[in-house]
């Protein structure tokens, strides 16, 4: 068995499979977006898969997460159903939110997924509230707030650090530092180190290579253990890079404008978290080519099946908004 800081080969292989699922789903969405098949904007998680996978692997099904506008990876990482997610993004009634939420709002309450969020920073306080609930209930649950480096400039971040520290809440703040806020390089809008903002509250901080799933996994393991043991909040900063545009169809928005160099993207492509994990598995002998190919073969039909399911499903029920707006009441 692995200890807390070194995932076992089995665990690594499971992480690989989860990351690959996220990657392939995102690639499929990229293609479908380019083909004009998806109604709304999609923000893809390609290149950041190690973070969702690594953190969520340390969680239980009943633990809580809140996510961002770039939320497909967290949804899948936490065990959300690929078909239901895909159908949601297609705006279909079989979608996890019955087509009411779309890409930016995929949520599955039954799996503790409190939802992707279209408001930058919007998930932070919700996670703190869930952690507060867990503390009061004494049910041993942990809450994770995934958020971007851009969200770290929203004041609600500091407010949440304060409350979480004061009340020793079982929460983990996972900042995915992917270097950009839309078309703005993070360095131009972020003073100092984000981790220092958490350190100001004496919250244990881990700044890790977000493209190394083992590092993320280990840091998350520490943090989850601390949270469950009543040790309060943790902060993890996973340094990574946004490989895709801010959203698909970014080029249309930019109209020739430029905010980063192609070369930089290429540099980061070399640090692809999936490739790195693949090489590690192979070189350490933890998995054979065949074993990895078998993963591919398991993932491909899920993706294909999800896309087909989504495409073939009925459009959303147009009356539904009026029915679900309130519980047990008309709007």
């Amino acid at each position, binding site marked *: 068995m692995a200890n807390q800081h070194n995932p076992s080969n089995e665990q690594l292989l499971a992480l690989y499979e989860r990351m690959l699922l996220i990657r392939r789903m995102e690639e499929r969405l990229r293609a479908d977006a380019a083909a004009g098949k998806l109604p709304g904007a999609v923000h893809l998680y390609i290149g950041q898969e190690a973070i969702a996978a690594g953190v969520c692997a340390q969680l239980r099904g009943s633990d809580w997460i809140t996510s961002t506008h770039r939320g497909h990876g967290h949804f899948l990482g936490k065990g959300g159903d690929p078909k239901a997610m895909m159908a949601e993004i297609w705006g279909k009634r079989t979608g996890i939110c019955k087509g009411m939420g779309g890409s930016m709002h995929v949520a599955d*309450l039954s799996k503790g997924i409190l939802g992707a969020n279209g408001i930058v920073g919007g998930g932070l306080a919700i996670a703190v509230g869930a952690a507060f609930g867990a503390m009061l*209930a004494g049910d041993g649950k942990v809450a994770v707030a995934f958020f971007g480096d851009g969200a770290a400039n929203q004041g609600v971040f500091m407010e949440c650090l304060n409350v979480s520290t004061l009340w020793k809440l079982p929460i983990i703040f996972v900042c995915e530092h992917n270097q950009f806020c839309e078309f703005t390089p993070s360095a131009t809008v972020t003073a100092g180190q984000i981790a220092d903002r958490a350190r100001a509250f004496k919250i244990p901080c881990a700044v890790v290579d977000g493209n190394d799933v083992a590092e993320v996994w280990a840091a998350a393991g520490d943090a989850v253990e601390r949270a469950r043991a009543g040790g309060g909040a943790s902060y993890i900063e996973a340094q990574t890079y946004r490989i895709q545009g801010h959203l698909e169809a970014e080029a249309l928005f930019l109209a020739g404008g430029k905010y980063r160099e192609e070369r930089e993207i290429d540099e980061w492509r070399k640090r692809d978290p999936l490739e790195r994990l693949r090489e590690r598995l192979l070189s350490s002998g933890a998995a054979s080519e065949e074993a990895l190919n078998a993963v591919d073969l398991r993932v491909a039909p899920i993706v294909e099946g999800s896309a087909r399911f989504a495409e073939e499903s009925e459009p959303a029920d147009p009356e539904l908004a009026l029915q679900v707006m309130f519980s*047990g009441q008309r709007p």
Partner: protein
Amino acid sequence: MARKRYIQAVNEALFEEMERDPKVIVFGEDVELAIFGDTRGLLERFGRNRIRNTPICEATLAGMAVGAAAAGFRVVLHMMFSNFIYTGFDAIANQMAKLRLMTGGQIELPITILAGYGGGRANAAQHSDTPHPLLMNLGGVNVLVPATPADAKGLLKEAIRGHNPTFFLEASGRGGDSGEVPDGEYTVPFGKAAVARAGRDVTIVAIGSMLKPALAAAEKLHAAGIQAEVIDPRTLVPLDEQAILASVGKTGRAIIVDEARDRCSAASHIAAVVADKAFAALRAPVKRITVPNVAMPYAPNAEMHVFPSDDQIARVATELVRFRTQ
């Protein structure tokens, strides 16, 4: 029945619901010592796991209410003055009011938010707003404006037991007003207006704090031979349109009195509903008596000047009764 102060009725509702359901929790700034008096005694009875002071950070408090409700609690969030709702407005308007729809109905958010509203106490612009119009427009939250201690208690209990985010707005500084409160257990349902006074000549819809001047005006009108019917909607979302329309159907005349600023007020909305659905019955213009579109001034005389008064209500009602189309 016993005479009780408004704040006492609110306090009783909190006590009873916290006794009844261990999932009810209360948090907010200074709730432990109860700056308004409404949470008095709860700490001693229920302890800090059920009621606790928070830092000053309304944005987070509103977001936490969502998360704690999602985690299975019935949340009562005290936001003190209505203006601080704006400070937490992101989580209210973008999360609380929308999360259920966005999840396709996966989630219930039993959240009750308390806040004092309105002017009349020289609290100045940043402590005197009447925010029900904004909240009504959000679409995803209930809005209660109980005007009597009995309604305050019954509606608050209903809100806490409910399934949806609900704003419970108390007229600031009226905590000392008293009225008869039923003994024993009861709740008041949402969406049922009260006929505070029956009459046949003109309908006065009086929202929240405006019930008092409306009733005073009705008394004066009575002396002048005009029988005003005073309707207290009690809840603005949901709104009891039927009660209002039935009254206007009878009287043919409607005045809506609202302490909100005029533009896009509850008065505007109710007037619009009347002009749509009671048109055939109308015998005179539909009148709004509201606060002009200004921030609340501080000086008491200037505050009084922008406030609806019983005299003004009586005057407009008299005009309406005399109105003849050419």
